[in-house]
């Protein structure tokens, strides 16, 4: 029995402990993002920043599509399909970069307000900045599993790195589901 298969007391394997640890990390991250959302509704009750709706819809669609390709990559490696895994991971990574370019290049740079220009600016840059940082770390994580995938590190039986990356990427997507609604759609333009 390999070390990956070794079970702990109560029948939980190493992989189960890894999963539990990662989900606990998501819970702690969730509290941090929930705090940012609470700040948004406390500082801008009934209003929202004046943002480009088209950009918001496009970057949201890109992130959802990237989550689909991440799911496809994980499903592929779980079935031993390495080529689909590598291609799908690459597409996820590219879509992640496009999302970052969309937020930074088409929302931050043309913005008429900065982080210090009142509540709208503070809320917008704090929420999108923290989320963009997580997307950036996710892209780095994707690059790691992509290069590992090219070297044939993962198999159908052992691919915890891919699973962890997929979970992290989907978590970042879930966060954006709430950030998109609260930044772009809820309330009247301030």
């Amino acid at each position, binding site marked *: 029995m390999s070390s990956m298969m070794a079970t702990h007391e109560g029948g939980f*394997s190493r*992989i*189960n402990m890894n999963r539990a640890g990662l*989900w606990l990390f998501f819970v702690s991250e969730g509290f941090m993002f929930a705090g940012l959302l609470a700040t948004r509704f406390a500082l801008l009750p009934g209003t929202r920043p004046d943002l480009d709706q088209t950009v918001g819809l496009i970057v949201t669609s890109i992130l959802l599509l990237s989550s689909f390709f*991440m799911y496809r990559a994980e499903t592929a490696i779980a079935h031993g399909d390495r080529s689909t895994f590598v291609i799908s991971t690459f597409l996820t990574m590219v879509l992640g970069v496009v999302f970052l370019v969309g937020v930074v290049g088409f929302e931050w740079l043309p913005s008429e307000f900065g982080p210090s220009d009142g509540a709208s600016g503070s809320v917008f840059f704090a929420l999108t900045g923290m989320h963009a940082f997580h997307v950036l770390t996710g892209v780095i994580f994707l690059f790691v599993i992509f290069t590992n995938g090219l070297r044939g590190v993962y198999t159908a*039986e052992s691919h915890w790195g891919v699973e962890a990356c997929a979970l992290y990427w989907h978590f970042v997507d879930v966060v954006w*589901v*709430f950030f998109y609604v609260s930044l772009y759609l809820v309330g009247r333009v301030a």
Partner: protein
Amino acid sequence: MSEKSKSSAMRTGVVVLVVLAVLTVAEFVVGTVTNGSLVPLAIIALIKAALIIQYFMHAPRVLRSDQEGGGH
């Protein structure tokens, strides 16, 4: 795992993606029509998050004790 279970899992992914896309458009329309009413938008966002957590993140997998690797 078989080719059949792989294509079934891939199909699930496509269905979830389509539903998420439809809900995102619905969000956009509701946000525009209702002038940004919080309740309907929050409900749609919760449904989208639940779909991602259930199908893409395989949330029930964390409670199982007998799976290795991807667990599809």
